[in-house]
Each structure stands twice: as C-alpha cells, then as structure tokens.
C-alpha cells in the first residue's frame, strides 16, 4: 500500500501517505472498520518521522475517512454510499492530469496520445 513513497518528490511525505490510504479506501483494499498501521509501526517501516505519519492521519481524520479511538488506534470509517466511487473518479482525474502534463512536457500531441491509448486498450474512443 505504501510502496514507492518518495522523499525526493516535491509532494510532501504526509500528503503522499494520506493519498495512499485514501486510494486504498476508495478501491476497497481498506474496508470499513479496517485498522491503519500504528504511527509507531508505519514510521519505522517507511523510515519517516512519526510526526509525518501523525499529520497524514490527522488530515484523513479531518476529511472523514478515518477515526482515531484513543488508545485503540486509527480505523477506517463507515463511508456514505457513493463516496468510494467519488474518490476513485477523483483519482482518475488526477491520473489523466498527470499524463497530460507529461505529454505536454515531452511534446506529444493529443491525437498521438489518443492513438496510443486506443492501441493500448484495443478499442476506438471516437
């Protein structure tokens, strides 16, 4: 779930960690009431500052994805129907933006991108 967290990226580590958890919740890897690793455990495993993990968990809590029960740990909350699907669409938009930005930077045109997508998927998109 946390594979490839990148300290050299301009995206802060706590944002990256929260993003991974959000995605795992959106795709159902983490179901309702599933426990998150403890701060201590995750900090040691990823070799990041415990404060970084705490910040990520605080953000997830503020967004309503998880709840922290004192002394017991942090757990995925029961989510409103449709929220997981909405998170997945959000993630899809993010992926497409990244792809488009990368294409623009390397000078790949839109039709070229579309042809590549079609060839990869084996379907016509228009």
């Amino acid at each position, binding site marked *: 779930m946390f594979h490839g967290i990148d*300290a*050299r*990226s*301009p995206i*802060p*580590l706590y944002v990256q960690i929260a993003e991974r958890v959000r995605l795992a919740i959106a795709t159902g890897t983490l179901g309702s009431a599933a426990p998150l690793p403890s*701060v*201590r455990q995750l*900090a*040691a*495993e*990823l*070799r*990041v*500052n*415990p*404060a*970084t993990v705490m910040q990520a968990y605080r953000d997830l809590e503020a967004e309503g994805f998880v709840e922290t029960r004192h002394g017991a740990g942090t757990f995925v909350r029961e989510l409103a129907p449709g929220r997981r699907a909405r998170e997945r669409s959000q993630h899809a938009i993010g992926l497409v933006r990244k792809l488009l930005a990368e294409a623009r930077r390397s000078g790949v045109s839109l039709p070229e991108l579309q042809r590549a997508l079609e060839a990869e998927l084996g379907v016509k998109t228009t």
Partner: protein
Amino acid sequence: MNNAIDIERLHYRVGKAFEIKDLDLHIPTGSIYGFLGPNGSGKTTTIRLILGLLRPLSGRITVLGDPMPEQHARVLGRIGYVPEQPHLDGTLTVRELIDFQSAFYPRWDRTRADELVQRFELDGDQLFGRLSKGQKAKLMILLALAQCGDLLVLDEPTDGLDPVVRRDILSALLTYVSERRATIFISSHLVHELERVCDWVAVMDNGRLITEAPMEKLKHGTKRLIVTGAPGEISNAPFRVLIREATNGAGENWVVGDWEPGMTSFFDGLGATVRDVIDLDLEDGFVELLRSFRTKAGGRA
C-alpha cells in the same frame, strides 16, 4: 522549555586553521534535526561543544535547559551520544558492555536493551573487537537508546554502513521517538537519508552556519528558475538569489531561496520572463546552497 538545544553566537577556535564563528542553532524539543555539512565543516566539533567536551571562546550553549559546559555532569546523563568512531573496549563482550554501560544510567531500560539485542541479531558472547562495522554501530545505538535519554546526539551514525544496517538503525530510532517525546540531533552528509526523517535541517560549511530551517520550507523554498530578459542588477526581490549564471541555451539559470508560488509576478515587473520553475530535492538544494555560500565567501576574501 521549547528547545532541547540552544546555541547563540558561539565562537570556538583551535590553532589558526579552523574556527567556528557566529554559530546560532535552535533545536526544538521533539524534533528530528538534521545537521548537514561536508566533511571538515565543523559538525563533530559542534557536537563536542554541545556535549560540553570542548569549551567555547564565547557564546552561549543551553542543553535541556542547562548551560554547557558548566552543567555537563548533570546533563550528560540525559543524553544518548553515539560518536563517529567506535569507542568501546574491544576485549569485552556485547553482554559485558551492556552491563557495564547500564551501571551509569539510573533510567536504564533493560527490556529495551534485550529487545534490541534480538532485533539487531547481536550475539551477547561476541567480543566487541570481533564485531563487524555494522554490528558495532548497532550496539552503540542500542546503548544510546537503552539509557532512555531525552536527547540523542548522533554523529554520522550510519556513515559507511550497508543499506540493511542503515535501515535497521533508522527504524529503531524512529520507534524510540514515537514512544517517547525525545529529540534527535543527527549529523550526516548522507542527505537522502535525512530527507525522509528530519523535520528541521541546518547546513554548515567551513565553521559557519549557512542555513537553519524547517525541512519543508527548505525543500519547497529552493527552486531553479530559467529566466530570460532580466536586467543585470535587480533589487527588492522577495526571494533570495543564490546563484545566477548563463545557460547553454536561451536565458539564465537562477537558483533561489525563500521562494513561494506566485513570485513569478516579480519578473513581470522587470520585463523578464520565467520560462520554468524546477523543483530541487534536498541534495540539489544542499549542493546549490554550498556553491552559493562558497562563491560569496570567495568574493569577499
């Protein structure tokens, strides 16, 4: 007490060759503080001053609320210190060294020591002199952690170790700070390793402090810009210009500090254009800071 260590206007010199001058450091309690600098920049000397092992010519050093070196006897019991070079008796076994060390520290945590012996896969009957470099480093970390200090001072703790040992040591340190509100002061020239764990960073070169900043601020405030059409002299820039040089292609290569999004508008006022804003990771930022500092120091001399 907000800071575990405070250093103000520190001046230290030995002989004519090397001096530490005008050093100010502020290490917040509970932080993991990375102390960066090339070899010979004064990191180890600064650590020895913090521990009260050297006496400054002038300036003030406060560690865990007490002045150093005056109160070092009282303070040292609360500091776990791992020096750069292994300093333990090679003719004692791992178990003997642990027992020996434990006698000096009233807060010694026997359970933690046993746990770490297991986790680090150390053999209690081995002679210290017979241990590999990695095993020696692990034992020294174990001794520093088991004494349950409020402050850990680590001088290049993972230098020259293989990646597996480095990983084990870092994990053990992070477990320790998540359990106790301890402060870690860690010197290194291994920038990537610190990039993951530190929340504060200081950079030293040639006995002077170049910068002290929260990690995020340093990382996100240092950028490379590709600029065209800028006049030779600029003033009132809202950011710091560290480096400015011609590139092979069009425009100039700038490295700036204290950068914030939206500052490109400053260039509009000059009739100049920012072609690109490039993120730097900590290592790139570190190298550019040093380069800028040395250029300016050279220019003054």
